[in-house]
């Protein structure tokens, strides 16, 4: 069905906002991926047509603001209990800024609120590359827009409020053909979308589109648009790939599922919808989302931005001034101590007031210092020389270490370098099964781009640090660097680049362990480890158990 061209992509922005404005509850919300720019402002300006009051949230918002509760400051000022209503108490269109920084806890709460069907969420995602909002949230948002590379002209003007209002009136009377649900479900399955929320959103989008056209019945055209708007960014399999090969690096292969469902729609008339959805798929989308999806797993228990100075657990630190919210605890003794000297003076001002006179400025919060989670970054030399010698042993040792890391609740990341570049096989995760799978599928061969491997590992380490984790690097190599940072086969340059990276490590203060996997200890590598201020361990031929014992002792 290629004779009917899919709706031009330029329409997507205006259309998404219009559809959302017609059925905000049914569509759940919009995931808008864009840095702050005029294009984004133009899209957000369209939010004015939403029939709900807009409320801005930030990822650090506390429970007291979301759910309401005693307003301590106001309570003290008035002398009676003042309860503030939470933002989630009323139907609203929540605008979540910096959605990529949204912690898992907030995502769950917003998800529950969305499930209750009281409003919609506009997630403004400013993430770069693999930074994504939590999947628990994005799964519940029907629509997606990515403004990257979209010019100002391509962003359509805000939809006409009158037209949207008329469409909203019409929406309850829009008929859906009997077959629509089946077609959308089959299409979603064909695109490898496991979540059943997607077809529901698509159905809602199709109805909203029909209403927008001023029609009383959902047509094939509506379904096509809906499939484009809702399915494109969720796809995990490109329908045209299913024939010749298994889906390229599946982030987490679900046994049997995709392989069973994907061939089926090929023979069905829903091809048309698949075609439409595929037209809206950016070429690199799959790789991008796969990377991002994996990266999200790193966020651990407390989500992004987990600071080392927690206020909930760990070693106590002196209390400090602050406002109690859902996240922190008041230190009553310190608060009273602060308030005590002022009592006489305040009593003169308020002779009638009962009890102690405490002002919000007296509040002292408890603080604790906690040790952050550790992330072990394995940087593995998978080059030809290493593959011949010790790659299998290195793999074995890592597997054994993984079991230890599991017991210690460490996170693990896996970087491999071979050929001309380095690759992040696994972003920091606690999922051992995944690590094991990636490791098992790591091939060996090619040159030794040591500097590139070190650079990537450092990027991972810096990102982990930004998330409040403590990175530790374990480098397993034979040290025979022969590929320079620019990818050329130039041994002196390669060694020079590696030395440069090593000095960067020395200044970064990332604890590092260099494990010499060459058949004989390499003096060059020992020098390099010295430049990195790393612990250097030459490993004589040994079995994996012995290697793991050495590693375990060095890292303990």
């Amino acid at each position, binding site marked *: 069905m290629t004779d009917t061209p899919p709706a031009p992509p330029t329409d997507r922005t205006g259309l998404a906002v219009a559809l959302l404005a017609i059925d905000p509850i*049914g569509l759940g919300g919009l995931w808008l991926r864009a840095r702050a720019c005029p294009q984004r402002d133009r899209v957000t300006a369209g939010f004015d047509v939403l029939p709900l009051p807009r409320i801005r949230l930030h990822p650090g918002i506390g*429970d007291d603001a979301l759910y309401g509760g*005693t307003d*301590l400051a106001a*309570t*003290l000022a008035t002398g009676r*209990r003042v309860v503030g209503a939470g933002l989630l108490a009323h139907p609203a269109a929540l605008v979540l800024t910096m959605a990529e920084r949204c912690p*898992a*806890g907030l995502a*769950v*709460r917003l998800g*529950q609120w969305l*499930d209750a*069907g009281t409003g919609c969420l506009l997630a403004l995602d400013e993430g770069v590359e693999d930074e994504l909002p939590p*999947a*628990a949230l994005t*799964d519940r948002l029907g629509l997606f827009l990515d403004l990257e590379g979209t010019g100002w002209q391509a962003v359509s003007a805000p939809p006409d409020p009158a037209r949207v209002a008329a469409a909203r009136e019409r929406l309850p009377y829009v008929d*859906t053909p009997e077959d629509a*649900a*089946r077609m959308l*479900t*089959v299409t*979603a*399955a064909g695109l490898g979308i*496991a*979540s*059943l*929320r*997607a077809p*529901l959103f698509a*159905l*809602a989008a199709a109805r909203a589109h029909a209403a927008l056209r001023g029609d009383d019945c959902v047509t094939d055209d509506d379904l096509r648009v809906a499939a484009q708007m809702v399915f494109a960014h969720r796809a995990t399999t490109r329908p045209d790939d299913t024939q010749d090969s298994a889906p390229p690096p599946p982030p987490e292969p*679900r046994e*049997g*599922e995709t392989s069973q*469902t994907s061939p*089926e729609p090929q023979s069905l008339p829903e091809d048309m919808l698949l075609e439409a959805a595929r037209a809206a798929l950016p070429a690199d989308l799959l790789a991008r989302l796969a990377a991002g999806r994996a990266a999200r*797993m790193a966020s*651990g*228990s*407390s*989500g992004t931005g987990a600071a080392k100075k927690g206020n*909930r*657990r760990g070693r106590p630190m002196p209390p400090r001034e602050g406002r*109690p919210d*859902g*996240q922190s605890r008041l230190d*009553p003794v310190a608060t009273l101590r602060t308030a005590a000297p002022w009592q006489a003076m305040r009593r003169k001002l308020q002779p009638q007031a009962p*009890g*102690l006179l405490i002002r919000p400025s007296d509040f002292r919060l408890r603080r604790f210092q906690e040790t952050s989670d550790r992330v072990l970054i394995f940087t593995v030399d998978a080059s030809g020389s290493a593959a011949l010698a010790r790659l299998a042993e290195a793999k074995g040792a890592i*597997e054994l270490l*993984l*079991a230890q890391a*599991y017991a210690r*609740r460490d996170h693990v990341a896996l970087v491999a370098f071979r050929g001309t570049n380095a690759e992040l096989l696994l972003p920091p995760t*606690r*999922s*051992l*099964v995944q690590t*094991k799978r990636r490791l098992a599928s790591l091939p060996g061969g090619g040159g030794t781009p040591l500097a590139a491997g070190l650079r990537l590992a450092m990027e991972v380490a810096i990102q982990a640090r930004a998330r409040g984790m403590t990175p530790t690097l374990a480098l397993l190599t034979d040290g025979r660097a022969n590929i320079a940072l620019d990818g050329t086969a130039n041994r002196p340059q390669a060694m020079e680049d590696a030395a440069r990276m090593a000095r960067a490590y020395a200044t970064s203060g990332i604890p590092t362990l260099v494990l010499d996997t060459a058949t004989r200890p390499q003096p060059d590598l020992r020098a390099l480890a010295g430049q990195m201020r790393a612990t250097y361990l030459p490993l004589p031929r040994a079995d994996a158990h012995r290697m793991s014992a050495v590693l375990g002792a060095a890292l303990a």
Partner: protein
Amino acid sequence: MKDPFPFSAIVGQEEMKQAMILTAIDPGIGGVLVFGDRGTGKSTAVRALAGLLPPIKAVEGCPVNSATPGTSPDWAHVTSTRVITRPTPVIDLPLGVTEDRVVGALDIERALTRGEKAFEPGLLARANRGYLYIDEVNLLEDHIVDLLLDVAQSGENVVEREGLSIRHPARFVLVGSGNPEEGELRPQLLDRFGLSVDVASPNDIATRVEVIRRRDAYENDTEVFLKKWRAKDTTLRKKILAARTALPLLQTPDSVLEDCAALCIALGSDGLRGELTLLRAARALAAFQGAPSVNRTHLRAVAPSALRHRLRRDPLDEAGSTARVARQINDILPA
């Protein structure tokens, strides 16, 4: 707020539904853990369960839902002696919740404004005699997990902080859900869940379409949809109540006990909690089906849920625990 999606209208996911019904029949089984992909109806099932559960009788205004007037805790100062009927509490425990909110704490507001030392009960108090639901349980902060482990074990919440010394009953059925890709659950907490269920998106198109149809009908015509399914939910509730009555009268032949033990030994599950839960779950299922005594069929039906999370975990084992349990069931308990 809309009425929750009716429990009986959930398509497929039979194991999850069975596990939830079993804990409703016998809360002593100790909770359900639902692990699976997004959008597979985990949260829907839990919310639906809240609508399905038979109401409880509790003292009016009692923060811990005491059944009889004399048993309300002293600190609550409950004056009413009226016993009212109220829905079984299903309390959400959100991620990032503070310790104070979970166990309860000094009522700061009253302490500061009126100088009174009063206890502000937390979520554990409210969940007493009901359900405590943790969405994304594998992302829960470790220190909250520690609290829950302790309370779930003892059935009592002990608060010793800020000059308060308070204890109150906190017996609840723990229901957790999560996505295993986002993190693992500590074995200690895993063990506290009586049953565990792995859910996946349905594979066949017909089921998927049916899910979408029903959900769509629910969204668009809630009243009609609820009316249509209310009768089924009521039947199910009556069956649960009947099973609760039948449970104490149920016969447990020795052969079933031997089967339980043999299966657990073969699987090498830690401790005896596996056997106990397996037996309780099998009894609950037998009661639900109106059978006069427990038999091997019941054991076979509940064994995967009761045991799959209790196997000593080999973190590097590729085959899932479900496969291991299934294999042993077929070996030890041939149908």
